[in-house]
């Protein structure tokens, strides 16, 4: 027997009944997987394929059946995974070894040197009903001709490790190895739920009378109902050449896989999202044979400038988008695009981060230097005394509350949303980090994490708008109150009287503070209810929410937005969103965390935004004027025992 198909010789049947098991609380996907794993085709069909008719696996099932060529540093592995055939793991599982390796060459043991496999050779395979037919991949070889992956081109590619294949090896190996069926769960989840019922229903008819290799057919059909490789696996295949330094060192070439991996599509692929676009989605769009891939300069290529709008707006991708979406730089590499508006925007954000976070970090470090030096302002003792006396009185404690209850509630809503946005957003920014995949899995996948991110963003924007409205109501109410001259204060004056504005006095205090921190003055400036850094953080939240909100909505509603703006805006929005988010994260993650948690004055956590009580150390150092005002209002004077009643 030499053919690939021999219904008379089958593996022993492993009959497994699952009826009782199904009533048990276990994942049903196990059932079908066990069924498909344990039952070779023979178990369910009368037309089953013989596994290894030539008994090659007698030796080749051993992974150690290998040798190492020390001179050429080459490992020759003659191992053939028997589970590939036992489990019908791929479309080649029903082939006999001699369908690819000339029988006359491998029939004799030990084998003489065998010739390379020719993938365009005609082989004999059994169709679904068991009828033998001839088959060849010669059509694929034809499709490759004239495309960018023409074997003649591939063999001439400059690669850093030299040619990847021997001259007489099939060029198919550049992109393919032994093909494997992907699991049925994704393509046919209902079948997976049914367990072996899915097979039992088929085998009622297809076992003896209408012979079909049901287990194999199910795997095959399920595999063909989905991309044959995961998005990440496709990128791995493409990266072999396209990320090779020698390959993209050539003029007019760049590391296309690297730039793809920096897009949303690439990052989603890294995080296990299978609905995102792979390289093939664009470069072989429109049911084009992937083997006939063309250069983007070819007018027939789906990535040619003229055809790109159609490629992007296919039903599977961005069906509602306008053609302008195609203006988006999918393979944008900032470092390689100097002088473009995208590069300048990114540079501007980095400058912004440097000029905002940088000085704040320096101030924090300088404050810590004072602690290391054991330095105290001469007025600290006086403020400490006032603080202690105020804290000893109920009305004093009330007066020292810096945040009202609504403000504290707003703060914690903001904090919660911020944390949620960071946890759901930054895994996408750092998608190649292990913790990102771990976090995304924790959220139930990228789709769930993105949904959470979107809704948290919406709530943040709504909260921001509510805060603005509340503030404006406050301003309006105050504007109607009479001023010192008995006239209504007016809108502008009320607006400017809000405590979070930076004033000239704040700048003077900043100069004073710097002089103190650099040991040029002995006393520190006295800040009021809100210190300079708190005002600065408030402004940061103000501009950050606006930038992140607007750009986030553009990116979320890309199809609608594409009707209103050029595709390049998406690049700009993505840059602004990601750099602003990073600025927010480092500011909150490093400086705000230091100020409210790690600072020795408040460690382990300042209760100012929980109970409203600001720790004495923080009051003395950061809000001395606020303490003195409170003391003055309550009639307390320094060194006065007991205080006023």
């Amino acid at each position, binding site marked *: 027997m030499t053919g690939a198909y021999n219904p008379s010789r089958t593996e022993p049947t*492993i*009959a*497994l009944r699952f009826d009782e*098991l199904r009533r048990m609380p276990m994942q049903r996907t*196990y059932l079908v997987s066990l069924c498909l*794993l*344990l039952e070779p085709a023979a178990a369910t069909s009368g037309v089953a394929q013989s596994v290894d008719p030539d*008994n090659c696996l*007698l*030796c080749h099932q051993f*992974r*150690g*059946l*290998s*040798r*190492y060529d020390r001179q050429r540093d*080459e*490992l020759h592995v003659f*191992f*053939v995974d*028997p589970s590939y055939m*036992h489990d019908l793991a791929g479309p080649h599982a029903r082939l006999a070894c001699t369908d690819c390796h000339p029988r006359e060459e491998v*029939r*004799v*043991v*030990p084998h003489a040197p065998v010739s390379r496999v020719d993938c365009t050779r005609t082989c004999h395979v059994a169709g679904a009903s068991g009828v033998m037919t001839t088959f060849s991949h010669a059509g694929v070889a034809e499709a490759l001709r004239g495309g960018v992956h023409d074997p003649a081109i591939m063999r001439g590619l400059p690669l850093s490790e030299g040619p*990847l294949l021997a001259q007489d*090896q099939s060029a198919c*190996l*550049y992109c*393919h*190895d*032994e093909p494997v069926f*992907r699991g049925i769960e994704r393509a046919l989840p209902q079948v997976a739920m049914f367990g072996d019922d899915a097979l039992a229903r088929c085998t009622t008819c297809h076992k003896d009378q209408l012979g079909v290799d049901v287990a194999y057919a199910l795997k095959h059909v399920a595999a063909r109902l989905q991309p044959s490789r995961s998005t*990440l*696996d496709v*990128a*791995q295949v493409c*990266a*072999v050449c396209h990320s090779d330094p020698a390959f993209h060192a050539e003029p007019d070439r*760049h*590391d296309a*896989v*690297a730039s793809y*991996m920096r897009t949303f599509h690439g990052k989603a692929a890294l995080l296990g999202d299978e609905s995102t676009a792979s390289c093939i989605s664009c470069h072989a769009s429109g049911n084009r044979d992937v083997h006939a891939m063309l250069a983007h300069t070819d007018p027939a290529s789906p990535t040619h400038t003229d055809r790109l709008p159609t490629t992007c707006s296919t039903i599977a991708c961005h069906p509602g988008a306008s053609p302008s979406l195609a203006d988006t730089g999918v393979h944008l590499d*900032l*470092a390689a695009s100097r002088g473009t508006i995208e590069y300048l925007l*990114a*540079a501007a954000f980095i400058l912004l*981060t440097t000029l905002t976070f940088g000085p704040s*970090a320096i101030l924090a*470090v300088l404050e*810590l230097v004072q*602690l*290391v030096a*054991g330095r105290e302002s001469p007025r600290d003792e006086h403020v400490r005394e006032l603080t202690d006396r105020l804290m000893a009185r109920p009305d004093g404690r009330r007066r020292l509350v810096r945040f009202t209850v609504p403000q504290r509630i707003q703060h914690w809503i903001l904090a919660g949303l911020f944390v949620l946005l960071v946890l759901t957003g930054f895994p996408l920014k750092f998608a*190649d980090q292990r913790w990102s995949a771990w976090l995304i899995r924790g959220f139930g996948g990228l789709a769930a994490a993105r949904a959470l991110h979107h809704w948290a963003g919406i709530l943040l924007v709504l909260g921001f708008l509510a805060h603005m409205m509340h503030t404006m109501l406050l301003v309006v109410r105050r504007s109607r109150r009479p001023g010192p001259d008995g006239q209504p204060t007016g809108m502008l004056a009320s607006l400017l009287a809000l405590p979070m504005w930076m004033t000239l006095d704040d700048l003077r205090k900043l100069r004073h503070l710097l002089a103190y921190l650099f040991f040029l003055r002995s006393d520190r400036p006295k800040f009021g209810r809100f210190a300079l850094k708190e005002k600065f953080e408030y402004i940061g939240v103000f501009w950050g929410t606006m930038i992140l909100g607007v750009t986030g909505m553009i990116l979320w509603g890309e199809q609608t937005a594409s009707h209103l703006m050029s595709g390049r805006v998406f690049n700009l929005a993505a840059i602004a969103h990601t750099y602003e988010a990073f600025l927010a994260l480092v500011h909150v*993650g*490093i*400086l705000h965390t230091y100020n409210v948690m790690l600072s020795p004055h408040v460690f382990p956590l300042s209760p100012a935004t929980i109970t409203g009580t600001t720790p004495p150390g923080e009051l003395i150092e950061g809000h001395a004027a606020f303490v003195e005002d409170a003391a003055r209002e309550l009639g307390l004077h320094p060194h006065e025992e007991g205080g006023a009643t």
Partner: protein
Amino acid sequence: MSGSSRGRAIRWLGALGRAGRAVGKRVYALALIGLIGYSSFLAFRYLVYTLMLPAEAPAQVTQLPRRLDRRVLETDRAAWAGLRTAEHARAPLSHYHRLDTWIQPDRANNCTTSGCHPPLPHAERKEVRAFLNMHATSLHCGVCHMQTEEQPLNLTWYDPATGASRGVPAVLETYAKLLSIEDQPGGYDEDARRVLVDLLRRAAVEAQDGEILTTLADHLRRLSPEAVETADFLAGARAVLPRYFRGEYGAKLALRGADTEAPILAHPGVEREIEPYRAAAGAMTDAERKNLVDRLHPLRRTEALECSDCHADGGIVDFAAAGYPPQRVRELTGSIVARMIQHISDGSPFYLPEFLTAPGTGEPERGEGSSP
């Protein structure tokens, strides 16, 4: 202790406490300076890199073995980020057949870790070199190449990751357990189920590619020994387990001393001479090299074992004592394997599948393989 000295001690302790607090506060502040400084540095470095350095594809995409070379032999599969993250990682280029699992590097085998011999060391006799290398996944070099007077050989299993002696591999133990259950009607009770499930789980881990075994264990754990499906699952396990008799058990056999379980993984007393030898080997004469090689291999057999020394009834390896189940022992010492080995040893080719055809039936005998 008088009152004044007690007061002095209390004052001292108080002063000490205050000093400690002051020092602690300063140390804490210094640590915070370091923390803020370092995290700020990381943040700025990241920002500058994103703008200045060209994008690079992440390791998950690029870190794949492109060639089958020595590096692949010596690296755990898990060390390749690309293989770890891929759904179906492709084989290294120029190789077609899938390598879903990996040859387990033996970190305890001094013959290879010393750099003297590659992990697949046999390269000379073209007709048998791959067959001989086949044993490298389950045997330490010393089993065939180290001199011992013991008959049968004193063998022990060891963990290739640590070199420590260990018990019989779970795959073999599980199969033996399954056969014993089959031989004893009613022998599958709650205790046997617990043992079997535990063994299946261990076997799944040790075999690297144990999805089926894990699934079987999950099912058996839920099935009462009296359930009607139990017999089917046990039969399924008995049919599936021999697929894992491929010499990769998460353990290897090595020689041991007569009164110790510790494996002999290196020639004794030669560690210091290996590096000088390797450095000077190129400049040595043949005689000098031979002399030094002899010194570096004090336990070497003058003639390595032949296949038939072990793969025959009454061979010098007691497979049963090593924990192989009876059926597997029969396969390893049985007729097909013995005939194959004899042909290969004689240098006489044979033909498949005719070679395996049972006389008079026209049907092939289905052997399971020859490696332990």
